[in-house]
């Protein structure tokens, strides 16, 4: 619980640093991409802080390239 509050505080600081200047310059697209990535980041961090397992990119890559590896080494 304490960890996720810390993560939310960090996210709030990031928003405080970035968003005002983006709003002032009227960068709409940047703001959308920024919020999507920040949401993914915060979601992953909180899931990790609660000890939930996050899908690991390495497992995904292993799933794709394993048949190739088996075919070559056999």
């Amino acid at each position: 619980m304490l960890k996720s509050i810390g993560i939310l505080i960090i996210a709030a600081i990031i928003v405080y640093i970035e968003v005002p200047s983006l709003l002032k310059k009227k960068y709409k697209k940047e703001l959308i991409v920024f919020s999507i990535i920040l949401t993914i980041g915060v979601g992953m961090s909180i899931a990790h802080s609660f000890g939930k397992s996050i899908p690991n990119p390495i497992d995904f890559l292993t799933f794709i390239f394993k048949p190739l590896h088996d075919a070559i080494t056999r």
Partner: protein
Amino acid sequence: MLPNVKINSYQFLVLVILFTIGTSILIVPSALASDSKQDAWIAAIFGTGIGLLIVWFFTKISLFFPNLTFVQMNETLFGKWLGKSFSFLFVCMTLLYTAILLYNSGTFLTTHQMSNTPIAATNILMAGILVMGVRLGLETIARSAEIFIGVFFLLFIILVIFIVPQIQFENLQPVWEVNIKSLARSSLLLIVVSSVNAVSLLMIFPAFINKPKSAQKYFLIGNLIAGIVIIIITLLCILVLGADLTARQMFPSYGLAKKINIGNYINRVEALMGTLWIISLYFKMVLYFYASVYGLAQIFNLRDYRALTYPLGMIVVILSLIVYPNVVDQQKFETTIGLYFSLTIGFLLPLLMVIVYAIRKKQLKKVTKAS
């Protein structure tokens, strides 16, 4: 539009050297020695030679369009949607490798220097400098690299001179005992780690250099210098520690620094030598991270890439914590699946680009003239 910065050829040379040495100096000797035993240095020489060919291939591709980055090149060659999806794969690769390097630096610091610190703490601190470097821009990174390359080579020369008394030539014998198959396998690892991954440097190579034609030469020279450094480190590891011990250690060049002993007075200076690896790891990491942030900004046609640095830094920290559950997984990924992933993005994709360029040459010339 994204801000337009230019660095000169010498700064680019320095960045290439630090990028290529990067992780290779820390982990490659053990990977080489586990396959080709005492002939690991021969594998290192082969790897550097073939790596130079690959870098030459990269320079040729990038000079098709001297004003575009790798991501923009994809878009011009393959069209909007296909190009963007290839670029997205490229960005995923660089982001994943940033996380892996962060994991490497974290394990190095927590196992060897600050053993009571949790890995998350060192990773967050390191990611802080990473984000700071990328926010300040490429010029700042290049200038700081210019300063740190001096420190790097000073420490490297000190390491080499101090370790010379410990050399035992028996460790090198018998020479040329290795069979071709394991030689090829171990040099492939070096080629991928130091040269094929240099595809991320194509994000800065033709577009942000003030004289791309002369910088082409520096790309090759930088790769060669870094290759020589790796050959020397591998040779010294074999000569001092022996093939068996080199293969068994996780960071053999750190074990090498532990062996320094001059007249029972200068010894255990490995913490000082740790600076070497932190410098080279940092610059490799920052270039990967720069490539992923800048690449993502160009995929979405953003006007400012700086807004993406903090959120992506957050993702990188989390990825670095989950990416490998343990060291065995790391070894397994780096010696098998990681190679295929790097080769797909760093070799097959550029090859495809050459083919498409050859087919669409006339059409593309019209487009570039019209614009």
